[in-house]
């Protein structure tokens, strides 16, 4: 099988999961391909390198069907079935340069039969997914990084250690070749009839704000429980709780400070949404310095890594936490880094600010700000009541200061993202940064 380079480049660049839309592509190269089914049509997966004109490159996984001479580089239902079959069989399929190995987790319910119903669902930033019989879901990673995908590690760990509020890991397939090793796809439980946490927030804030607040209290508890489980196995070096080295807080602060400086450097002077923070970059950095004069930073553990309402589902009677991949634009090395669990908490709190801003409140009811304050209170109450306090900095004041550092990091990231992508949303991170600047930062 050979590809026309132009066809390949154009196809990959059209995809939602293609991450480098603004970069000039110099070359595309087929690195390896593995035939999954040799019947007509031939079904296969391909590993492709996209090389940019600055010399950097990325790796992608393509799925394709070959009907006679006609190449169909699209998500194919038949191909999904074949991948599941290979998972069930624990197959090892040869490519040219390496092999693809399929693994299943013993006892996983979705793998006891060929799926009757298969449907591809919407693409995400770096992957596409296919739902099987409405009870399991195969996530196919499209942009690849060498090494073990954190989602495989974390989901496997949570499944093994009995965390009830995440999907169970059912299997995975991975490439091992001379060029690299990479996780290609993960099978897990599909949350049937789950309501996306973000959608639920928007619905219930308008219709039943108090009910949603009690759900957030529960989400705080589930989050605390998730961190307790992630911190529960000292024998696994990838998950063992660690005491951060003395400069951990300094490294974090320096990183956030650089991001603040860069973000404010790029701010335009005449954007009205930016007016409340315009010219106040130095104040933000000063506040950051005050916040980071804390005591010991607690412990560092493996975390969710990209935690917000959109990564949760309300599944009838409780929350389910999804998507343990971490932030897709960061390297595996960064995503796998152990961090304070408060970084996840900060991500979720920022998500409440977005929900408050996007939802419509009943006339005469509380304001968005008031709702956000109550949402934070509920969530944090549930969280601090559940999480093992030894994972956090000693004392609530120290914990809150560290939490604020992470919130600031997140809000500054949002500011740059929204300026580039959704200028109408800029006021949300602006309000968040303003709130963090106005709160007292000095140690009591």
């Amino acid at each position: 099988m050979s590809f026309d380079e132009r066809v390949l480049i154009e196809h990959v660049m059209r995809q939602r999961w293609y991450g480098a839309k603004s970069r000039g592509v110099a070359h595309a190269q087929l690195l390896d391909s593995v035939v999954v089914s040799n019947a007509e049509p031939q079904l296969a997966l391909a590993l492709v390198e996209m090389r940019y004109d600055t010399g950097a490159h990325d790796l992608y996984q393509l799925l394709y069907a070959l009907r006679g001479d006609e190449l169909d580089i699209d998500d194919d239902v038949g191909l999904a079935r074949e991948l599941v079959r290979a998972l069930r069989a624990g197959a090892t399929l040869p490519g040219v340069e390496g092999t693809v190995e399929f693994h299943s987790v013993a006892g996983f319910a979705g793998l006891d039969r060929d799926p009757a119903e298969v449907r591809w669902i919407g693409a995400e930033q770096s992957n596409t997914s296919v739902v099987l019989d409405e009870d399991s879901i195969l996530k196919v990673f499209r942009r690849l990084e060498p090494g073990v995908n954190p989602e495989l590690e974390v989901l496997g760990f949570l499944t093994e250690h009995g965390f009830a509020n995440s999907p169970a890991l059912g299997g995975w397939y991975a490439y091992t070749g001379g060029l690299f090793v990479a996780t290609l796809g993960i099978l897990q439980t599909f949350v049937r009839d789950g309501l996306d946490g973000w959608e639920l927030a928007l619905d219930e804030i308008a219709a039943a704000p108090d009910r949603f607040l009690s759900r957030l209290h529960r989400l705080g508890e589930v989050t605390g429980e998730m961190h307790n489980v992630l911190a529960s196995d000292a024998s696994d070096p990838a998950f063992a709780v660690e005491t951060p080295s003395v400069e951990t807080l300094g490294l974090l602060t320096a990183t956030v400070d650089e991001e603040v400086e860069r973000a404010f450097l790029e701010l335009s002077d005449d954007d009205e949404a930016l007016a409340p923070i315009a010219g106040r970059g130095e104040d933000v950095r000063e506040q950051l310095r005050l916040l980071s004069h804390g005591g010991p930073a607690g412990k560092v553990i493996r975390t969710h890594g990209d935690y917000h309402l959109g990564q949760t589902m309300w599944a009838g009677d409780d929350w389910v936490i999804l998507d343990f991949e971490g932030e897709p634009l960061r390297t595996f090395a960064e995503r796998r880094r152990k961090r304070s669990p408060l970084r996840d908490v900060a991500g979720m709190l920022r998500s409440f600010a977005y929900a408050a801003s996007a939802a419509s409140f009943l006339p005469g009811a509380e304001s968005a700000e008031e709702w956000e304050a109550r949402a934070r209170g509920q969530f944090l109450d549930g969280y601090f009541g559940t999480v093992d306090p030894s994972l956090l900095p000693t004392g609530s004041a120290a914990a809150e200061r560290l939490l604020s550092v992470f919130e600031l990091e997140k809000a500054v990231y949002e500011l740059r993202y929204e300026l580039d992508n959704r200028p109408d949303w800029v006021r949300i991170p602006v309000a968040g940064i303003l709130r963090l600047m106005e709160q007292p930062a000095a140690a009591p």
Partner: protein
Amino acid sequence: MPHRWFEREPLWFKRAVFYEIHIRGFFDGNADGAGDFRGLIEKLDYLQWLGVDCVWLLPMYPSPLRDGGYDISDFLSIHQDYGTVADFTEFVEQAHQRGIRVIADLVMNHTSSEHPWFQESRANRNGPKADWYVWSDTDEPYRDARVIFVDSEPSNWSFDAVRGQYYWHRFFHHQPDLNYENPEVQEAMLDVLRFWLDLGIDGFRLDAVPYLYEEDGSNCENLPRTHEYLKRVRAEVDAHYPDRVLLAEANQWPEDVVAYLGDAESGDECHMAFHFPLMPRMFVAVRREDAAPLYEILERTPAIPENAQWGLFLRNHDELTLEMVTDEERDYMYDEYAKDPRMRINLGIRRRLAPLLDNGRDEIELMHAILFSLPGSPVLYYGDEIGMGDNVYLGDRDGVRTPMQWTSDRNGGFSHADWAQLYLQPLMDPVYGYQAVNVEAQLRTPTSLLRWIARFIALRKEHPVFGLGSYEPLRSDNSRIFAHIRRWEEDVILCVHNVARSAQAVQLDLSAHAGMVPEEMFGRTRFPAVGELPYLLTLAPRGFFWFQLRRADP
């Protein structure tokens, strides 16, 4: 089985930033007064934050430490002060997980006189190891070989009373040279390499490679058979250990060093070699306020194979070596940089970067800018990123090997041991002492040298052109300006450096780039487009600009 966290990338070293670590001096993980592998693991987050791609470890093997560990008494183990082989493999795995590779020093030329091989060789003239070292009844052979450690060694031969013969040593008398004429020695050294490669190490910095073989009538350096053996080592690595790197320490002129990179087409010897003569000329250039020495040495630097790379550095664990300069240049360097005779050792200056530059922040930044702009991979020396000082009152080269200064706490945050237990006391003087110069304080200070260097490393790594691109000197009428163009694929970078203490203006002929818009790379400020006329730039004292030349927006 250790995971593989890297994509296959045989040329990774061409884009890497290296960081040289003295294990003893980095961080003490077990409170015994000396740094160790457990301590190194604790500091990996720092190295990841700094942006280091590859750590180079000074010798880590058992040794009587009469030459900073370059006197190895067991090639297949770890010095007890540093931990165990298991600690080492854990360190490598942890580093790999953070995207950091690890290479280590290896001395092929000689062993410690305490190595069991030498003990066996001296004890029995007819034993199996009798021929593993270079023995002679007289001290006559190889007369034309110079003595390297002129301050301490009168001759390359020393008499061994046990065996009743002279033995050959190019360095200290307690470091007998191995006899590479002997096929068993050749094999034994390959076994040493395999042992560490199997444990996951990413390569070696091969110490003192020019001296493996001796021949009468030659200066016993860079002999053809030495190259033959190194080619054999490379073939072994290529065949069984992909993506590893051999970095040659050959303190020679570039035209001789190039031979260590092998065939001009296939590059079949070492992957990298240090560019020694460049470094003193950088110091000469800023002191004389004249860019000519830089243009000249780069002009004199021959092309290297496509798959090879220069290792570039400002300072390292040894003296600032002045072997590769003329006598006149050496006198100049001594006068300017080592007024106190205590600062001199052998043919060099034993000082760290910051004191050499009188702690001038502009000078330190300028030197890094020039270093980072040149074709090659920069090698940073631990502590120089915070501007650590030296202690010229310590013996040998210990003055530049004092403990890393992490905090302003006890022992500079280097160790929880008692002050008196430390292998060397950290610096305490008011300018460079750990109270004034430490990682913790500089992390907190946005304008610190450390923060600047981290930002600079990040910038360099965004542009593979610095590791992979061509170098085109750009001469001008102003002799105080060092300017050049780097180009790789579509990325074109213009680097302009002012080596003078005063502000300078320069007119550069950029007509080949007419229509392009220079964008300053730190602040992303756009400068006026390049036209057909000379391009005028003004630079602050010791200032520099790096521009990306971009096509004008349509």
